């Protein structure tokens, strides 16, 4: 028997049921979320986009000052100051990582949050690529991914691919046209990394027919795109752009005079190709519905894409309006972030329960760790002896940031440009399941309170609850064990 629409909407297409928050009752309501979410104030970056940009600008100044001061300082002082500076950046990221949980757990727009997770993983970047990426990646999700998820795919692709986070992550900042003025002077050359992933991962898809020559020519077209290291804004520099026209997949880009519009035209054309359309539609359906998604759903999505020139809202609508999208519940395994988010939602966790844990009680009083953290102080040799970096680091909330790391999906740190795996067998196996059971028990102990497990089961899984789970929870020796069993149940891990 099919599950209720609202149950499927919350489990398969949302972030799970949260007692007191009504799940969508119709496809129109779900699509309406996309508009409403655009007016939602995000929990990250801390203080908003402008504050995040200010922090980046301040940090570049701080770093320049440190380097200046380093010329006069002894090597040890210089090193310690750099360590402090780096910890400051790590702490800023820690704040944002926790806020990302707050955002997804508290937002009433579950479908929108799931799309953010999907597109973040599709256009993967890693906050550990270099130190400043710790500041840039939260901003990337907030300004390049989220505002464009319901618009044209081409616009989303341009925003993501040309954002400083991506330009740094995939080494575009190291790519210089060999025949550009800079290339001739410095003898440096092309880096194909972004071009390759743009074709293989972001748009056309592996094995869709493009050649190594297309990759190389796309890399030539991309030259010129770089990042201003003072402001960390993307910019186009003609001094590193390879002159001349280059052919990618049969179309020519650029000429004697090059500009950013060549790059944008390339992304537009790639986004408009049938290979991209099929690749992306299939990937979206595979994310939400099943590792091998129903062919008719993918076709309906591709038709909508073609009709609207890649309006993503229309593509989502085609998926959601197809009956096959609502059949056979539980074919996908929630990846760790979504598993924990849905567990915290089931437990009605509020913002206070999701905060980081601040500094160690014995930490030095003037420590780094807040958004307005002080300039690292100059230190002498004596202090260096008992310098303890751990005392300067913000502590994590054990139920969120380190938990997803342990389960294999650290926030903003995918293992490769291909992102985290999105298949059942990766997440449901001995070690990972043992980790999930451990989390379920910890969450039940910390947050379960005196809930009645039977009511909890009904509120969080409704008609998706299976007989084995109902029976086992009834037999649980303690309330805590009952709650843990609900959170560890197969249907809570599936969607």
């Amino acid at each position: 028997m099919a599950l209720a629409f609202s149950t499927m909407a919350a489990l398969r297409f949302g972030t799970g049921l949260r007692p007191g928050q009504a799940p969508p009752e119709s496809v129109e309501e779900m699509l309406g979320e996309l508009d409403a979410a655009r007016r939602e104030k995000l929990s990250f970056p801390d203080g908003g986009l402008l504050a995040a940009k200010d922090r980046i600008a301040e940090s570049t100044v701080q770093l320049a000052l440190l380097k200046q001061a380093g010329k006069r300082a002894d090597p040890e002082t210089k090193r310690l100051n750099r360590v402090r500076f780096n910890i400051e950046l790590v702490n800023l990221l820690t704040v944002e990582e926790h806020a990302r949980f707050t955002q997804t757990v508290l937002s009433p727009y579950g479908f929108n949050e799931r799309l953010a997770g999907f597109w973040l993983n599709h256009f993967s970047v890693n906050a550990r690529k270099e130190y400043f990426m710790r500041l840039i990646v939260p901003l990337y999700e907030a300004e390049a991914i989220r505002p464009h998820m319901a618009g044209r795919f081409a616009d989303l692709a341009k925003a993501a691919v040309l954002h400083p986070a991506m330009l740094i992550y995939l080494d575009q900042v190291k790519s210089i046209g060999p025949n550009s003025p800079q290339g001739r002077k410095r003898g440096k050359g092309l880096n194909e990394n972004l071009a390759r992933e743009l074709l293989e991962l972001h748009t056309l898809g592996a094995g869709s027919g493009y050649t190594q020559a297309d990759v190389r020519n796309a890399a030539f077209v991309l030259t010129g795109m770089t990042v201003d290291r003072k402001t960390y804004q993307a910019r186009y520099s003609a001094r590193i752009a390879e002159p001349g026209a280059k052919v990618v997949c049969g179309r020519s880009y650029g000429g004697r005079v090059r500009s950013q519009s060549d790059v944008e035209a390339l992304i537009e054309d790639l986004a408009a190709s049938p290979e991209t359309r099929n690749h992306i539609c299939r990937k979206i359906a595979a994310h939400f519905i099943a590792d091998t998604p129903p062919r008719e759903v993918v076709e309906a999505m591709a038709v909508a894409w073609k009709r609207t020139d890649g309006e993503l809202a229309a593509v989502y609508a085609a998926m959601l309006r197809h009956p096959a999208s609502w059949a056979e519940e539980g074919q996908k395994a929630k990846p760790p972030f979504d598993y924990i988010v849905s567990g915290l939602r089931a437990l009605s966790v509020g913002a206070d329960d999701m905060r980081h844990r601040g500094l160690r009680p014995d930490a030095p009083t003037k420590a780094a760790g807040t958004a307005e953290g002080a300039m690292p102080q100059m230190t002498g040799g004596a202090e260096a002896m008992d310098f303890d970096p751990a005392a300067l680091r913000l502590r994590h909330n054990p139920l969120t940031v380190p938990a997803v790391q342990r389960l294999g999906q650290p926030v903003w740190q995918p293992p490769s440009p291909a992102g985290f795996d999105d298949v059942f067998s990766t997440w449901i196996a001995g070690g990972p399941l043992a980790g999930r059971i451990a989390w379920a028990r910890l969450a039940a102990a910390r947050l379960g309170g005196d809930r009645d497990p039977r009511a909890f089961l009904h509120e969080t899984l409704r008609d998706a609850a299976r007989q084995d789970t109902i029976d086992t929870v009834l037999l649980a020796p303690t309330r805590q064990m009952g709650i843990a069993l609900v959170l560890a149940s197969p249907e809570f891990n599936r969607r």
Partner: protein
Amino acid sequence: MDVDQKMPLSRRAFLTSACCVAAAPLFTSLTLAAAPGDKRLVTVVLRGAMDGLHLVQPYADPAFRLYRPTLAVSPDDGLIDLDGFYGLNPEAQALLPLWKSGELSFVQSVSTPYRNARSHFDGQDVLENGGAVLGDEKTGWLNRALSAIPSPSSRKAVDVNTSAALLLSGENRVDVWSTQTDLTMKTDETAFFERLYRNDPPFAQAIAEAEVIDGSTDTLFADQKRGAKTADIARLAAGMLMQDYRIASFSITGWDTHARQKPAFRAPATDLAAAILTIRETLSPAAWKDTIIVAITEFGRTVRENGSGGTDHGTGGLAVIAGGGIHGGRVIGRWPGLAEDRLLDGRDLMPTGDVRELAAAMLYRQFDISAGNLTNIIFPGLDFSPSSIYLKSV
């Protein structure tokens, strides 16, 4: 319109179809004892760029001391002579018996093809994905190797880690187990979870697997505390190799010694020695004979020490090989020399070997993977043949 027709047969998809045997459920076989004579491989990733010149010091080269006036240790100060040219850092002296018994070798001046940028992040990516350039491969070479092992019983691999490292990530099923993964349940509690999962096959299989591993981990650690130290990780890895796992991988961190390298080297060097010795102790003598441990790092460090008594990111590095069946007690690989004009960019040890060739040689030796698979799928573009010096040397 036909959407699926265009589905690319990607490298990834190809591997999926090629590896279905390896991906098949294997949990029942966990209860079987390991067949004697099965070859095993342990990879240890030394993260942070291990200073090979500090671990194994070319003390007989007079230039060495000039490059490293405070860091170089002389035999008079405790450096342990290995062969009249190289000496072992005393922080790793626990390894000396293995060197003497021929169960330990060092591989001099190897590197990945990664050049000129010296970023840990990118260097480790290349080390683990086995490609010729950054971004060439999306999966780990050790995962791709699983598809190419002829004997299905040798394909079971574990990543002893909190989350899967790139090295073992890919299409093939790999278990991830951490020393901190502990079901810590009484039998009656376990029964609830078994009941919860009994009618959902993948979950039933996963909990059965988890219980077996958890049980054997408990036995392995007996009354000792299950810590997260390197020795604990190594014990767990070896314990799983005594079951039906044949490949295990874990990491040792702490090698990024930009300052005060002498004291800073102590912890990771002690860890490395402890890892190797713990694996040897935990394995049966027969299993140790069939095991090779290979420890590799993303790149070496500068030949000159810096102003903080440390070293900076370099290129040519050192790999460590240990095992009960190797012809060890040797420093393998061509020594490039320390003359100014022999250094890469005037600063780094010149690489004289590809660390991927070393890894390929170990895979070839342990698992009979064909040279064709090694150079096409596992390390695309690598030059490897069965006459590799790394094969002759082990």
